């Protein structure tokens, strides 16, 4: 009796699946669907929700100016739940079920790596907004986030300029910090500096007591930190408690932007340094418009940062590329995007290179008590993106099909 009932239920499940097929939606006339795939739950939701907001803002703006090719853009929002397998699953859903023409999303390299085969299999296009470790070059992804040579290496140049030659490398234990540090190590040695320590803490780790002891022993000129998220708060708190000030031993962070500074309380990280391709304090007309629009949509207290502006710019470039190509076909769009030429954006002039990564300017800033960065240094013009660092990975080249 019991097992019979189970079988009925199982059959019912199958029927439901079947219904799902019939319900599969297709784009109506006059609209076109795009996917927005970020973690809205789980550990990465903190960061990714704001990028999703910026992406939606850009879609609103494009729609307000008449849409693309006469069609309104309809975003289909999915949750990657901070789980690479779910990112891959949802990417497949967006492409196959919802029939979106392109997808904006991803944050961690793990999520991008998990989605990559899906986009290649179904010949679709992903716009990826976050700075990353490079070493990847897929024709189905537009990499707008910084390559190592556009964020990390400029920061090192700046440190060397300031005479800081003894560097301590500290990161959360995942791919970006480890690879970034591998590249940094080569360049530090080549530039005549010394790596006096290299340490990793598990993601979400909160105890830095041993690492601070190691830092005190090593006496570096500067700490290069690729710590992620909340670990930063613990690190800076425990650093301060141990009596180490920014003046004595500055920290250069690659994962603290305005959002993080705000949530950590600016007093804690006051005086520390960061390298990005965008700061909210940048003084240009596009940025002012962007900030005003974002605040009017999401509230006065909102702050903006680098990944958000990339999520925003991605949509605008996609729309421009669609117009140029006259089609939503991913192949035509990605070609057109690399042929657009220089575009003004909140982060300065940008354009997609033929390797489908973005030309952009690097900035080094110092955190002020109001939670904003004061720009101390900027690269000479927009830097060409190099997915493979020539020193660390000789002989590797990125060729897009």
């Amino acid at each position: 009796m019991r097992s019979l009932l189970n079988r009925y239920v199982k059959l019912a499940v199958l029927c439901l699946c079947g219904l799902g097929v019939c319900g599969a939606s297709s784009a109506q006339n006059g609209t076109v669907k795009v996917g927005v795939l970020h973690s809205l739950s789980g550990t990465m939701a903190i960061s990714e929700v704001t990028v999703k907001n910026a992406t939606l803002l850009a879609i609103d703006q494009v729609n307000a100016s008449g849409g693309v090719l006469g069609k309104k853009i309809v975003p289909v929002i999915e949750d990657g739940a901070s789980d690479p397998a779910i990112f891959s699953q949802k990417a497949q859903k967006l492409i196959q079920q919802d029939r979106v023409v392109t997808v904006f999303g991803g944050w961690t390299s793990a999520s991008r790596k998990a989605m990559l085969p899906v986009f290649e299999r179904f010949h679709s296009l992903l716009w990826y907004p976050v700075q990353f470790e490079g070493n990847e070059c897929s024709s189905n992804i537009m990499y707008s986030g910084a390559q190592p040579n556009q964020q990390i290496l400029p920061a090192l140049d700046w440190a060397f300029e300031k005479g800081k030659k003894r560097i301590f490398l500290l990161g959360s234990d995942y791919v970006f910090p480890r690879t970034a540090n591998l590249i940094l190590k080569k360049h530090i040695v080549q530039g005549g500096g010394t790596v006096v320590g290299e340490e990793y803490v598990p993601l979400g780790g909160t105890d830095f007591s041993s690492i601070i002891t190691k830092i005190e022993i090593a006496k570096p000129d500067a700490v290069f930190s690729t710590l992620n998220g909340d670990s930063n708060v613990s690190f800076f708190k425990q650093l301060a408690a141990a009596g180490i000030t920014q003046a004595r031993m500055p920290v250069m962070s690659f994962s603290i932007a305005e959002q993080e500074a705000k949530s950590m309380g600016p007093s804690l990280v006051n005086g520390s340094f960061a390298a990005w391709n965008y700061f909210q304090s940048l003084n240009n007309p596009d940025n002012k418009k962007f900030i005003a629009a974002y605040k009017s949509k999401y509230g006065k207290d909102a702050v903006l940062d680098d990944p958000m502006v990339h999520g925003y710019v991605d949509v605008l470039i996609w729309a421009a590329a669609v117009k140029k190509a006259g089609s939503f076909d991913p192949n035509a769009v990605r070609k057109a995007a690399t042929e657009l030429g220089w575009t003004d954006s909140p982060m300065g002039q940008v354009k997609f290179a033929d390797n489908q990564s973005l030309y952009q300017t690097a900035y080094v800033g110092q955190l002020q008590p109001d939670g904003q960065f004061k720009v101390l240094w900027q690269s000479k013009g927009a830097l060409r993106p190099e997915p493979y660092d020539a020193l660390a990975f000789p002989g590797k080249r990125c060729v897009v099909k």
Partner: protein
Amino acid sequence: MKKRLELSFDAAMLAALALAPFYLSSYHLSLLGRFLALAILSLGISLIWGWGGILSLGQGVFWGLGAYVLAMHLKLTGLAPGDIPDFMMWSGLDHLPGWWRLFQSPLPALVGAIAIPAAVAAGLAWLVFDRRVRGVYFALITQALALAFSTLLISEQAYTGGFNGLTDFTTIFGRVIIDPGFQRGIYWITLATLALCFLGCRWILNASFGKVLLAIRDGESRVRFLGYNPAAYKTVAFALAGALAGLSGALYILHVGVISPAMVGVVPSIEMVIAVAVGGRASLPGVILGTLLVNFGKDWISSAMPEVWQLAMGLLFILVVTVLPQGLAGIPGAAARLFRPRRKRQEPEAPRREMRKGAAMAAQEKD
């Protein structure tokens, strides 16, 4: 007569699932395929937990071992001769580590995907059960194991792909994975494997092994004083569950194409258990059903209202355990009891018996 009816239902079920590629969309088919692969893992959990009373919060470890072993093979077959996987390159390795070569050919990889998790499970289980450590202690140790395993995978990036895990598989056994025809083939292979595992589990549970396992759940010392060595039985059961988990993991990545530490840690491991609890921990068809329902439910809820998923999951845990400890498989029985007149004294006595048993277990824990 009843047996024949059951058999025909089995056949109808199997047929309905086997024909799924013809009536399901490609996306839903791929979902169904990966959930059927997970159901193999659930059978193993039912074996140890539903029958043996061993709660493991670290099944993700064995599942992950199976998945990683096959993923290593897939990664190797996709390489040009003399090349190394990309993540090794950017982690500073310049040649392939020797133990990776083990999985270069398909047979060792397939055997390894089952044998390695089984061996690890057996080793751990023997070390712990032989010392009479069990119950809550064992659950906590396995949870720590899940945490340590994912931490280790992340920190040994040069050998494991680190936080990103292993992904981007192109071919298996000379076939192109992304070919839709091959996807369908993988689905059928998964279904057939699940059916075989189901029959296998039913067979050993009906043999004396199953009886002894159930007896161990009821009273481990009692069984020991009948001349059986509970540690041996539990170790074998745990190793079997490990093998099923490894097999499940290996099949799963064929559907998903990615394995990463985030899929094997503490939280996924405990989600595996809840799927079994929902279905009914001691019912083999129940746990398959539970796995499908919970995972389809997760897919649906997390699309519709992502922030609700965790709340729904939490409530599910509490409700299943307090209201429906037998899971969905217990509903027919509970319904039948509702409509039948109650037996005298039996019902009111039940909670007290539980209480006494609890006190006895308390004294017995780690005896």
